Protein backbone atom coordinates (compact mmCIF):
# COMPACT_ATOMS: atom_id res chain seq x y z
CA UNK A 1 0.00 0.00 0.00
CA UNK A 2 1.44 3.39 -1.00
CA UNK A 3 1.44 6.19 1.54
CA UNK A 4 -0.92 9.11 1.04
CA UNK A 5 0.63 12.30 -0.28
CA UNK A 6 -0.22 15.63 1.28
CA UNK A 7 0.86 19.03 0.10
CA UNK A 8 2.44 21.58 2.43
CA UNK A 9 -0.79 23.25 3.51
CA UNK A 10 -2.72 19.99 3.83
CA UNK A 11 -5.40 21.14 1.36
CA UNK A 12 -4.40 18.49 -1.18
CA UNK A 13 -4.32 14.79 -0.27
CA UNK A 14 -4.26 11.73 -2.49
CA UNK A 15 -2.85 8.24 -2.64
CA UNK A 16 -0.96 7.25 -5.81
CA UNK A 17 -0.88 3.62 -6.93
CA UNK A 18 2.92 3.79 -7.04
CA UNK A 19 5.45 6.15 -5.48
CA UNK A 20 8.60 5.70 -7.54
CA UNK A 21 12.09 6.94 -6.71
CA UNK A 22 14.23 6.32 -9.81
CA UNK A 23 17.93 6.16 -9.02
CA UNK A 24 19.13 7.34 -12.41
CA UNK A 25 18.07 8.61 -15.80
CA UNK A 26 17.82 5.13 -17.35
CA UNK A 27 15.37 3.98 -14.67
CA UNK A 28 13.33 7.14 -15.19
CA UNK A 29 13.18 6.55 -18.95
CA UNK A 30 11.99 2.99 -18.41
CA UNK A 31 9.36 4.14 -15.94
CA UNK A 32 7.94 6.66 -18.42
CA UNK A 33 8.03 4.16 -21.30
CA UNK A 34 6.21 1.54 -19.25
CA UNK A 35 3.63 4.08 -18.09
CA UNK A 36 2.99 5.11 -21.69
CA UNK A 37 2.59 1.51 -22.80
CA UNK A 38 0.13 0.83 -19.98
CA UNK A 39 -1.84 4.06 -20.48
CA UNK A 40 -0.87 5.34 -17.04
CA UNK A 41 -0.14 8.85 -15.84
CA UNK A 42 3.14 10.03 -14.30
CA UNK A 43 3.47 13.12 -12.12
CA UNK A 44 6.53 14.34 -10.25
CA UNK A 45 6.38 15.89 -6.82
CA UNK A 46 8.90 18.14 -5.14
CA UNK A 47 8.30 19.76 -1.78
CA UNK A 48 4.53 19.74 -2.19
CA UNK A 49 4.34 23.49 -1.74
CA UNK A 50 1.87 24.08 -4.57
CA UNK A 51 -1.73 24.12 -3.49
CA UNK A 52 -3.23 23.27 -6.88
CA UNK A 53 -3.39 19.57 -7.82
CA UNK A 54 -0.46 19.75 -10.25
CA UNK A 55 1.12 16.60 -8.86
CA UNK A 56 -2.05 14.68 -8.07
CA UNK A 57 -2.32 11.28 -9.67
CA UNK A 58 -3.94 7.96 -8.95
CA UNK A 59 -1.18 6.32 -11.00
CA UNK A 60 2.55 6.94 -10.63
CA UNK A 61 4.02 9.65 -8.43
CA UNK A 62 7.74 10.21 -8.88
CA UNK A 63 10.28 11.60 -6.48
CA UNK A 64 13.49 12.96 -7.99
CA UNK A 65 15.35 13.01 -4.69
CA UNK A 66 18.13 10.87 -6.08
CA UNK A 67 19.03 13.54 -8.63
CA UNK A 68 21.31 15.81 -6.65
CA UNK A 69 24.49 17.77 -7.20
CA UNK A 70 26.31 19.90 -9.73
CA UNK A 71 27.03 18.54 -13.20
CA UNK A 72 29.30 21.34 -14.45
CA UNK A 73 30.10 25.03 -14.13
CA UNK A 74 30.83 27.26 -17.14
CA UNK A 75 31.36 30.76 -15.74
CA UNK A 76 28.01 31.98 -14.44
CA UNK A 77 26.19 29.02 -15.96
CA UNK A 78 25.68 26.13 -13.61
CA UNK A 79 24.18 22.81 -14.66
CA UNK A 80 22.61 21.00 -11.74
CA UNK A 81 20.59 17.84 -11.29
CA UNK A 82 16.91 18.49 -10.87
CA UNK A 83 16.05 17.01 -7.49
CA UNK A 84 17.32 19.76 -5.18
CA UNK A 85 15.18 21.71 -2.79
CA UNK A 86 15.38 25.46 -3.35
CA UNK A 87 17.11 26.13 -0.04
CA UNK A 88 19.68 23.46 -0.85
CA UNK A 89 20.12 24.89 -4.35
CA UNK A 90 20.78 28.38 -2.97
CA UNK A 91 23.53 26.97 -0.77
CA UNK A 92 25.03 25.07 -3.70
CA UNK A 93 24.96 28.17 -5.90
CA UNK A 94 26.67 30.18 -3.16
CA UNK A 95 29.40 27.56 -2.85
CA UNK A 96 30.08 28.19 -6.54
CA UNK A 97 30.05 31.98 -6.05
CA UNK A 98 26.67 32.32 -7.69
CA UNK A 99 23.05 33.11 -6.88
CA UNK A 100 19.59 33.42 -8.33
CA UNK A 101 18.77 37.02 -9.23
CA UNK A 102 15.76 36.95 -6.96
CA UNK A 103 13.82 34.66 -4.65
CA UNK A 104 10.27 34.34 -3.43
CA UNK A 105 8.85 35.02 -0.02
CA UNK A 106 9.77 31.51 1.13
CA UNK A 107 12.31 28.90 0.04
CA UNK A 108 10.30 25.83 0.96
CA UNK A 109 9.82 24.76 -2.63
CA UNK A 110 11.78 22.30 -4.74
CA UNK A 111 13.94 23.94 -7.38
CA UNK A 112 11.94 22.08 -10.04
CA UNK A 113 8.62 23.27 -8.61
CA UNK A 114 9.81 26.86 -8.36
CA UNK A 115 10.92 26.83 -11.99
CA UNK A 116 8.00 24.83 -13.30
CA UNK A 117 5.28 27.02 -11.80
CA UNK A 118 6.89 30.42 -12.45
CA UNK A 119 7.74 31.28 -8.84
CA UNK A 120 8.65 34.93 -8.39
CA UNK A 121 9.88 37.37 -5.82
CA UNK A 122 9.43 41.10 -5.91
CA UNK A 123 11.31 43.86 -7.70
CA UNK A 124 10.37 46.15 -10.54
CA UNK A 125 13.36 45.03 -12.61
CA UNK A 126 13.58 41.42 -11.45
CA UNK A 127 12.10 38.51 -13.37
CA UNK A 128 10.69 35.17 -12.32
CA UNK A 129 13.04 32.43 -11.13
CA UNK A 130 12.34 30.38 -14.30
CA UNK A 131 14.06 33.07 -16.35
CA UNK A 132 17.40 31.60 -15.26
CA UNK A 133 16.71 28.47 -17.32
CA UNK A 134 18.90 28.47 -20.42
CA UNK A 135 18.79 24.80 -21.20
CA UNK A 136 18.39 21.38 -19.72
CA UNK A 137 17.91 17.71 -20.14
CA UNK A 138 14.58 15.97 -19.74
CA UNK A 139 12.76 12.72 -20.34
CA UNK A 140 9.80 13.35 -22.64
CA UNK A 141 6.48 11.50 -22.73
CA UNK A 142 7.93 8.75 -24.88
CA UNK A 143 10.81 8.09 -22.54
CA UNK A 144 13.34 9.83 -24.80
CA UNK A 145 16.12 12.13 -23.62
CA UNK A 146 15.76 15.67 -24.94
CA UNK A 147 18.72 17.99 -24.40
CA UNK A 148 18.44 21.63 -25.39
CA UNK A 149 19.85 25.10 -24.80
CA UNK A 150 18.51 28.58 -25.38
CA UNK A 151 20.82 28.82 -28.38
CA UNK A 152 19.92 25.49 -29.98
CA UNK A 153 16.18 25.60 -29.30
CA UNK A 154 14.89 28.95 -28.05
CA UNK A 155 11.25 27.99 -28.56
CA UNK A 156 11.51 24.87 -26.41
CA UNK A 157 13.42 26.85 -23.77
CA UNK A 158 10.71 29.51 -23.54
CA UNK A 159 8.07 26.78 -23.29
CA UNK A 160 10.07 24.82 -20.72
CA UNK A 161 10.67 27.75 -18.37
CA UNK A 162 7.12 27.51 -17.02
CA UNK A 163 5.77 24.13 -18.06
CA UNK A 164 3.99 22.70 -14.99
CA UNK A 165 5.79 19.41 -15.57
CA UNK A 166 3.85 18.87 -18.78
CA UNK A 167 6.70 18.67 -21.29
CA UNK A 168 8.72 16.04 -19.53
CA UNK A 169 10.67 15.26 -16.41
CA UNK A 170 13.81 17.35 -16.08
CA UNK A 171 16.92 15.53 -14.95
CA UNK A 172 19.23 18.53 -15.34
CA UNK A 173 18.76 22.28 -15.35
CA UNK A 174 21.19 24.61 -17.07
CA UNK A 175 20.92 27.90 -15.19
CA UNK A 176 22.34 31.28 -16.07
CA UNK A 177 23.01 32.68 -12.60
CA UNK A 178 24.49 35.93 -11.27
CA UNK A 179 27.51 36.47 -9.01
CA UNK A 180 26.62 35.91 -5.35
CA UNK A 181 25.52 39.11 -3.62
CA UNK A 182 24.42 40.45 -0.28
CA UNK A 183 21.38 42.52 0.59
CA UNK A 184 20.24 44.70 3.46
CA UNK A 185 16.67 43.80 4.34
CA UNK A 186 14.50 46.26 6.27
CA UNK A 187 10.95 45.84 7.47
CA UNK A 188 8.88 48.95 8.07
CA UNK A 189 5.49 49.57 9.64
CA UNK A 190 3.08 52.24 8.46
CA UNK A 191 -0.56 52.88 7.60
CA UNK A 192 -1.78 51.42 4.33
CA UNK A 193 -2.80 54.84 3.04
CA UNK A 194 0.73 56.17 3.54
CA UNK A 195 2.06 53.11 1.76
CA UNK A 196 -0.24 53.62 -1.23
CA UNK A 197 0.51 57.35 -1.38
CA UNK A 198 4.22 56.52 -1.81
CA UNK A 199 3.84 53.28 -3.77
CA UNK A 200 5.44 54.40 -7.03
CA UNK A 201 8.51 55.76 -5.24
CA UNK A 202 8.84 52.67 -3.07
CA UNK A 203 8.75 50.43 -6.13
CA UNK A 204 11.16 52.62 -8.09
CA UNK A 205 13.69 53.33 -5.34
CA UNK A 206 14.32 49.88 -3.91
CA UNK A 207 15.82 46.80 -5.54
CA UNK A 208 13.12 44.71 -3.92
CA UNK A 209 9.98 46.15 -2.44
CA UNK A 210 6.72 44.58 -1.37
CA UNK A 211 4.09 45.21 1.24
CA UNK A 212 1.64 43.28 3.33
CA UNK A 213 -1.70 44.83 4.19
CA UNK A 214 -3.35 43.71 7.42
CA UNK A 215 -7.10 43.63 6.84
CA UNK A 216 -8.01 43.82 10.52
CA UNK A 217 -6.07 46.98 11.28
CA UNK A 218 -5.39 48.75 7.95
CA UNK A 219 -1.70 48.74 8.79
CA UNK A 220 0.98 47.74 6.33
CA UNK A 221 4.37 46.12 6.61
CA UNK A 222 6.82 47.30 3.95
CA UNK A 223 9.85 45.23 3.04
CA UNK A 224 12.78 46.78 1.24
CA UNK A 225 15.98 45.08 0.16
CA UNK A 226 18.97 46.89 -1.25
CA UNK A 227 22.70 46.37 -1.69
CA UNK A 228 24.32 47.25 1.65
CA UNK A 229 25.35 50.90 1.67
CA UNK A 230 23.07 51.77 -1.26
CA UNK A 231 19.81 52.11 0.67
CA UNK A 232 17.73 55.21 -0.06
CA UNK A 233 17.05 57.53 2.85
CA UNK A 234 14.71 56.59 5.67
CA UNK A 235 10.97 56.57 5.12
CA UNK A 236 9.60 59.46 7.21
CA UNK A 237 6.08 57.99 7.26
CA UNK A 238 7.19 54.56 8.55
CA UNK A 239 9.26 53.12 11.37
CA UNK A 240 11.85 50.42 10.84
CA UNK A 241 10.92 47.37 12.86
CA UNK A 242 13.62 44.95 11.79
CA UNK A 243 16.80 44.89 9.70
CA UNK A 244 19.19 42.20 8.55
CA UNK A 245 22.10 41.94 6.15
CA UNK A 246 23.33 38.76 4.52
CA UNK A 247 23.57 36.67 1.38
CA UNK A 248 20.53 36.94 -0.86
CA UNK A 249 19.48 33.36 -0.18
CA UNK A 250 19.46 34.05 3.55
CA UNK A 251 17.66 37.39 3.64
CA UNK A 252 15.13 37.42 0.79
CA UNK A 253 13.04 34.44 1.95
CA UNK A 254 11.83 34.24 5.50
CA UNK A 255 10.78 31.35 7.71
CA UNK A 256 7.13 30.41 7.77
CA UNK A 257 5.71 27.85 10.15
CA UNK A 258 2.08 28.97 9.95
CA UNK A 259 0.44 27.03 7.16
CA UNK A 260 -1.89 28.77 4.77
CA UNK A 261 -3.66 28.50 1.45
CA UNK A 262 -3.28 31.27 -1.06
CA UNK A 263 -4.70 32.74 -4.25
CA UNK A 264 -2.46 35.03 -6.28
CA UNK A 265 -2.92 36.81 -9.59
CA UNK A 266 -0.54 38.66 -11.89
CA UNK A 267 -1.86 41.99 -13.11
CA UNK A 268 -0.55 44.51 -15.62
CA UNK A 269 1.56 46.69 -13.33
CA UNK A 270 -0.51 49.79 -14.03
CA UNK A 271 -3.66 48.00 -12.82
CA UNK A 272 -2.15 46.98 -9.49
CA UNK A 273 -3.19 49.92 -7.28
CA UNK A 274 -6.80 49.98 -8.48
CA UNK A 275 -7.10 46.23 -8.09
CA UNK A 276 -5.63 46.34 -4.62
CA UNK A 277 -8.03 49.15 -3.64
CA UNK A 278 -10.96 46.99 -4.71
CA UNK A 279 -9.57 43.95 -2.89
CA UNK A 280 -9.14 45.99 0.28
CA UNK A 281 -12.64 47.38 0.09
CA UNK A 282 -14.20 43.97 -0.55
CA UNK A 283 -12.35 42.21 2.27
CA UNK A 284 -13.25 44.92 4.77
CA UNK A 285 -16.88 44.93 3.69
CA UNK A 286 -17.49 41.20 3.41
CA UNK A 287 -14.72 38.95 4.69
CA UNK A 288 -13.18 40.52 7.75
CA UNK A 289 -15.28 38.39 10.07
CA UNK A 290 -13.28 35.31 9.18
CA UNK A 291 -10.23 36.57 7.31
CA UNK A 292 -7.27 37.85 9.31
CA UNK A 293 -4.32 36.98 7.06
CA UNK A 294 -2.53 39.78 5.29
CA UNK A 295 -2.64 40.55 1.57
CA UNK A 296 0.70 40.63 -0.25
CA UNK A 297 1.52 43.05 -3.09
CA UNK A 298 4.61 42.58 -5.23
CA UNK A 299 6.02 43.61 -8.60
CA UNK A 300 7.78 41.51 -11.25
CA UNK A 301 9.52 42.44 -14.50
CA UNK A 302 7.98 41.12 -17.70
CA UNK A 303 9.54 38.14 -19.48
CA UNK A 304 9.16 35.89 -22.52
CA UNK A 305 8.31 32.47 -21.08
CA UNK A 306 5.15 31.32 -22.82
CA UNK A 307 3.17 30.51 -19.68
CA UNK A 308 4.75 33.03 -17.32
CA UNK A 309 2.26 35.19 -15.45
CA UNK A 310 4.46 38.13 -16.41
CA UNK A 311 4.69 37.14 -20.07
CA UNK A 312 5.03 40.28 -22.14
CA UNK A 313 4.19 42.71 -19.37
CA UNK A 314 5.64 44.15 -16.21
CA UNK A 315 3.37 42.97 -13.45
CA UNK A 316 2.01 43.61 -10.01
CA UNK A 317 0.88 40.57 -8.08
CA UNK A 318 -1.81 40.53 -5.42
CA UNK A 319 -2.19 37.50 -3.19
CA UNK A 320 -4.62 36.65 -0.44
CA UNK A 321 -3.90 34.10 2.25
CA UNK A 322 -6.08 32.18 4.65
CA UNK A 323 -5.17 29.89 7.53
CA UNK A 324 -4.92 26.33 6.25
CA UNK A 325 -7.24 25.15 9.04
CA UNK A 326 -10.07 27.44 7.89
CA UNK A 327 -12.30 27.03 4.80
CA UNK A 328 -10.83 29.19 2.01
CA UNK A 329 -12.86 28.44 -1.07
CA UNK A 330 -15.79 30.85 -0.58
CA UNK A 331 -13.32 33.67 0.15
CA UNK A 332 -11.06 32.96 -2.81
CA UNK A 333 -13.95 32.40 -5.24
CA UNK A 334 -15.46 35.71 -4.21
CA UNK A 335 -12.18 37.58 -4.74
CA UNK A 336 -11.14 35.97 -8.04
CA UNK A 337 -13.53 37.98 -10.27
CA UNK A 338 -11.94 41.22 -9.03
CA UNK A 339 -8.50 39.92 -10.00
CA UNK A 340 -9.74 38.79 -13.41
CA UNK A 341 -11.51 42.07 -14.08
CA UNK A 342 -8.19 43.89 -13.72
CA UNK A 343 -6.55 41.68 -16.33
CA UNK A 344 -5.17 39.08 -13.94
CA UNK A 345 -3.55 35.76 -14.70
CA UNK A 346 -3.55 33.11 -11.96
CA UNK A 347 -0.38 31.83 -10.31
CA UNK A 348 -0.13 28.19 -11.41
CA UNK A 349 0.88 26.86 -8.01
CA UNK A 350 -1.77 28.65 -5.97
CA UNK A 351 -5.50 28.29 -5.73
CA UNK A 352 -7.54 29.42 -8.71
CA UNK A 353 -10.71 28.29 -10.43
CA UNK A 354 -9.84 28.68 -14.12
CA UNK A 355 -9.65 26.18 -16.98
CA UNK A 356 -8.49 26.25 -20.61
CA UNK A 357 -11.46 28.27 -21.77
CA UNK A 358 -10.61 31.19 -19.51
CA UNK A 359 -6.85 30.81 -19.67
CA UNK A 360 -6.32 30.61 -23.42
CA UNK A 361 -7.06 34.31 -24.10
CA UNK A 362 -4.73 35.42 -21.28
CA UNK A 363 -1.52 34.07 -22.82
CA UNK A 364 -0.44 35.27 -26.30
CA UNK A 365 1.75 32.18 -26.79
CA UNK A 366 -0.80 29.69 -25.47
CA UNK A 367 -1.15 27.71 -28.71
CA UNK A 368 2.61 27.60 -29.25
CA UNK A 369 3.02 26.06 -25.82
CA UNK A 370 0.26 23.53 -26.45
CA UNK A 371 1.77 22.51 -29.78
CA UNK A 372 5.13 21.88 -28.11
CA UNK A 373 3.47 20.04 -25.23
CA UNK A 374 1.61 17.70 -27.58
CA UNK A 375 4.82 16.99 -29.48
CA UNK A 376 6.75 16.28 -26.27
CA UNK A 377 4.00 14.16 -24.73
CA UNK A 378 1.73 12.93 -27.52
CA UNK A 379 0.00 10.31 -25.37
CA UNK A 380 -0.62 12.53 -22.37
CA UNK A 381 1.55 10.55 -19.96
CA UNK A 382 2.10 13.72 -17.91
CA UNK A 383 -1.48 14.96 -18.16
CA UNK A 384 -3.46 14.49 -14.95
CA UNK A 385 -7.10 15.67 -14.73
CA UNK A 386 -6.08 19.10 -13.42
CA UNK A 387 -3.65 19.70 -16.28
CA UNK A 388 -6.21 18.38 -18.74
CA UNK A 389 -8.64 21.02 -17.45
CA UNK A 390 -5.99 23.72 -17.71
CA UNK A 391 -4.71 22.85 -21.17
CA UNK A 392 -7.52 21.09 -22.98
CA UNK A 393 -10.61 22.06 -21.02
CA UNK A 394 -12.94 19.92 -18.93
CA UNK A 395 -13.02 16.22 -19.78
CA UNK A 396 -14.95 15.70 -23.00
CA UNK A 397 -14.23 19.21 -24.29
CA UNK A 398 -12.70 19.53 -27.74
CA UNK A 399 -9.11 20.88 -27.64
Amino acid at each position, binding site marked *: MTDAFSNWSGSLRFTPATHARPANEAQLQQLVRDAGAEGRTVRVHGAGHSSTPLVQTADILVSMKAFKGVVRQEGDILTVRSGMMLKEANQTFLEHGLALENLGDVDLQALAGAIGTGTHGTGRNLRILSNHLVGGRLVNGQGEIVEFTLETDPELTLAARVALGALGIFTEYRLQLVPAFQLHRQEWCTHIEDCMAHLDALIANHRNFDFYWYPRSDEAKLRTLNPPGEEPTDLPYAWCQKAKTGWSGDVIPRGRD*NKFDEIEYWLPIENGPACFAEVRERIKAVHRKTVG*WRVLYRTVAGDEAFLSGAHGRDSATVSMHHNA*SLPHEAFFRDMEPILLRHGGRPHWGKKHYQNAEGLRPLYPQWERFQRIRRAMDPNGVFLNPHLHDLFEGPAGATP
Partner: protein
Amino acid sequence: MNNSTGNAAGPGHAAGRTAWAIAGGHIPLRSTGREPEHTSRDELCLLNTGAEDAEVEVTLFYSDRDPVGPYRLRVSARRVRRVRVNDLINPEAPPLDQDYGAIVTSNVPIVLQFERKDTSGSENGILTTLGLPL
Protein backbone atom coordinates in the same frame (compact mmCIF):
# COMPACT_ATOMS: atom_id res chain seq x y z
CA MET B 1 4.41 25.73 37.84
CA ASN B 2 4.25 28.50 40.42
CA ASN B 3 0.69 29.77 40.38
CA SER B 4 0.81 32.58 42.89
CA THR B 5 3.06 35.37 44.04
CA GLY B 6 0.20 37.54 45.18
CA ASN B 7 2.20 39.82 47.47
CA ALA B 8 4.91 40.70 44.96
CA ALA B 9 5.22 44.42 44.34
CA GLY B 10 8.85 45.53 44.31
CA PRO B 11 11.35 45.50 41.46
CA GLY B 12 12.09 42.03 40.23
CA HIS B 13 9.09 40.49 41.96
CA ALA B 14 6.75 38.66 39.64
CA ALA B 15 3.27 39.96 40.40
CA GLY B 16 0.13 38.14 39.42
CA ARG B 17 -0.71 34.57 38.51
CA THR B 18 0.33 32.00 35.94
CA ALA B 19 -3.21 31.23 34.77
CA TRP B 20 -6.06 33.56 33.93
CA ALA B 21 -9.53 33.21 32.43
CA ILE B 22 -11.70 35.48 30.31
CA ALA B 23 -15.29 34.41 29.75
CA GLY B 24 -16.86 37.34 27.90
CA GLY B 25 -14.83 37.67 24.71
CA HIS B 26 -16.61 39.07 21.64
CA ILE B 27 -14.86 41.18 19.01
CA PRO B 28 -17.32 43.64 17.44
CA LEU B 29 -17.55 43.25 13.66
CA ARG B 30 -18.01 46.87 12.64
CA SER B 31 -15.68 49.80 13.27
CA THR B 32 -16.13 53.56 12.94
CA GLY B 33 -13.31 56.00 12.28
CA ARG B 34 -9.76 55.68 11.03
CA GLU B 35 -8.01 52.44 11.76
CA PRO B 36 -6.06 51.05 13.52
CA GLU B 37 -6.67 53.49 16.38
CA HIS B 38 -10.45 53.16 16.12
CA THR B 39 -10.70 49.49 15.16
CA SER B 40 -13.24 47.66 17.29
CA ARG B 41 -11.27 45.11 19.23
CA ASP B 42 -10.66 42.89 22.21
CA GLU B 43 -7.24 43.41 23.70
CA LEU B 44 -5.11 41.47 26.14
CA CYS B 45 -3.11 43.81 28.38
CA LEU B 46 -0.22 41.83 29.83
CA LEU B 47 2.04 42.96 32.65
CA ASN B 48 5.22 41.11 33.54
CA THR B 49 6.89 42.67 36.58
CA GLY B 50 9.33 39.81 37.04
CA ALA B 51 12.96 39.45 36.02
CA GLU B 52 12.28 36.66 33.54
CA ASP B 53 10.55 36.84 30.16
CA ALA B 54 7.04 35.43 30.22
CA GLU B 55 6.17 32.77 27.66
CA VAL B 56 2.42 33.10 27.38
CA GLU B 57 -0.05 30.73 25.77
CA VAL B 58 -3.61 31.70 24.88
CA THR B 59 -6.32 29.15 24.12
CA LEU B 60 -9.68 30.32 22.79
CA PHE B 61 -12.97 28.54 23.52
CA TYR B 62 -16.16 28.80 21.45
CA SER B 63 -19.80 27.86 21.76
CA ASP B 64 -19.93 25.59 18.74
CA ARG B 65 -16.51 24.07 18.12
CA ASP B 66 -13.37 22.80 19.76
CA PRO B 67 -10.87 25.17 21.39
CA VAL B 68 -8.19 26.72 19.21
CA GLY B 69 -4.64 27.32 20.33
CA PRO B 70 -2.21 27.80 21.76
CA TYR B 71 -1.37 31.24 20.47
CA ARG B 72 2.13 31.88 21.77
CA LEU B 73 3.20 35.33 22.96
CA ARG B 74 6.26 36.62 24.76
CA VAL B 75 6.22 39.44 27.31
CA SER B 76 9.71 40.64 28.13
CA ALA B 77 10.83 40.95 31.73
CA ARG B 78 9.55 44.09 33.48
CA ARG B 79 7.46 45.13 30.49
CA VAL B 80 3.85 45.50 29.48
CA ARG B 81 2.46 44.30 26.18
CA ARG B 82 -0.91 44.82 24.53
CA VAL B 83 -2.09 42.24 22.06
CA ARG B 84 -5.26 42.59 20.02
CA VAL B 85 -7.20 39.35 19.86
CA ASN B 86 -8.21 40.51 16.35
CA ASP B 87 -4.56 40.22 15.29
CA LEU B 88 -3.89 36.69 16.53
CA ILE B 89 -3.19 34.57 13.48
CA ASN B 90 -1.24 31.46 14.38
CA PRO B 91 -2.76 28.84 14.46
CA GLU B 92 -5.77 30.69 13.02
CA ALA B 93 -7.54 34.03 12.92
CA PRO B 94 -10.24 34.27 15.63
CA PRO B 95 -13.64 35.07 14.13
CA LEU B 96 -15.11 38.51 14.75
CA ASP B 97 -18.66 38.90 16.06
CA GLN B 98 -18.63 35.57 17.88
CA ASP B 99 -18.66 34.78 21.60
CA TYR B 100 -15.48 33.25 22.93
CA GLY B 101 -13.62 32.67 26.16
CA ALA B 102 -9.92 32.41 26.78
CA ILE B 103 -7.49 30.71 29.10
CA VAL B 104 -4.15 32.49 29.35
CA THR B 105 -1.23 30.68 30.93
CA SER B 106 2.34 31.79 31.51
CA ASN B 107 5.57 30.18 32.70
CA VAL B 108 5.98 33.03 35.22
CA PRO B 109 3.37 35.12 37.05
CA ILE B 110 1.82 37.94 35.04
CA VAL B 111 -1.15 40.26 35.39
CA LEU B 112 -3.84 40.09 32.72
CA GLN B 113 -6.24 42.91 32.05
CA PHE B 114 -8.85 42.61 29.31
CA GLU B 115 -10.06 45.56 27.27
CA ARG B 116 -12.74 45.96 24.62
CA LYS B 117 -13.02 48.95 22.34
CA ASP B 118 -16.33 48.97 20.50
CA THR B 119 -16.60 51.61 17.79
CA SER B 120 -19.58 50.00 16.06
CA GLY B 121 -21.73 53.05 16.57
CA SER B 122 -19.24 55.78 17.35
CA GLU B 123 -15.51 56.24 17.60
CA ASN B 124 -15.21 55.81 21.35
CA GLY B 125 -16.49 53.14 23.67
CA ILE B 126 -14.28 51.21 26.03
CA LEU B 127 -14.86 48.41 28.49
CA THR B 128 -12.01 47.31 30.72
CA THR B 129 -11.92 44.49 33.22
CA LEU B 130 -9.40 42.32 35.00
CA GLY B 131 -9.15 38.75 33.82
CA LEU B 132 -10.14 36.14 36.39
CA PRO B 133 -7.03 34.85 38.16
CA LEU B 134 -7.03 31.06 38.49
